[in-house]
């Protein structure tokens, strides 16, 4: 039986391509929303966008140095606007404004009630995880 494996060097290569620490040039964005209080990727639009994006624009993510060769990490801080709201989801995107496209990772989470100028800091970590065989 033929095995298909994604080896360590491949993991590091892909991580380098998306991280400035490894020479990647892509820009990433983090957005939040008020939908998707149950689980990730099951609510409406969950596979392609946030279920219900909030009015605040996505922010450009700060990309941290790779903590490991196969790991990328992005951080974004979003600030609540004039209207109080309960944030229940967030996403990491490779588009700053487009809808229904550009989503890389989406999470839903317990509702966080925010007043004006309250902030949430999201830290997205993507690791191409290997398992010794």
């Amino acid at each position, binding site marked *: 039986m033929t*095995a298909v*494996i*994604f*080896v*360590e060097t*491949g*993991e590091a290569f892909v991580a380098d391509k998306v991280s400035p620490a490894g020479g990647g040039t892509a820009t990433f964005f983090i957005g939040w929303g008020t939908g998707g209080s*149950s*689980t*990730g*990727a*099951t*609510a*409406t639009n969950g596979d392609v966008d946030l279920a219900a994006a909030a009015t605040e624009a996505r922010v450009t993510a700060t990309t941290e140095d790779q903590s490991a060769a196969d790991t990328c990490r992005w951080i974004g801080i979003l600030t609540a606007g004039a209207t109080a709201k309960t944030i229940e989801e*967030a996403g990491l995107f490779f588009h700053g404004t487009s809808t229904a496209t550009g989503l890389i*990772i989406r*999470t*839903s*989470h*317990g509702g*966080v009630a*925010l*007043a*004006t*100028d*309250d*902030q*949430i*800091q*999201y*830290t*997205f*970590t*993507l*690791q*191409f*995880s*290997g*398992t*010794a*065989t």
Partner: protein
Amino acid sequence: MTQAKASSGAVARVEIAVRRKGETEFKPVEEKTLPEWMAERMAKLIKFGKGESP
């Protein structure tokens, strides 16, 4: 063939921290991981069927 390591796939983790207006530090409130999402999603799919939103 020498196989040093086989990937089990990508693992995503999201850490969530909140800072209220006037506070100086972010306080962690939650951490989510991909396997957790997958387990929840599978449970929903089994219960409600693909394409339906519970």
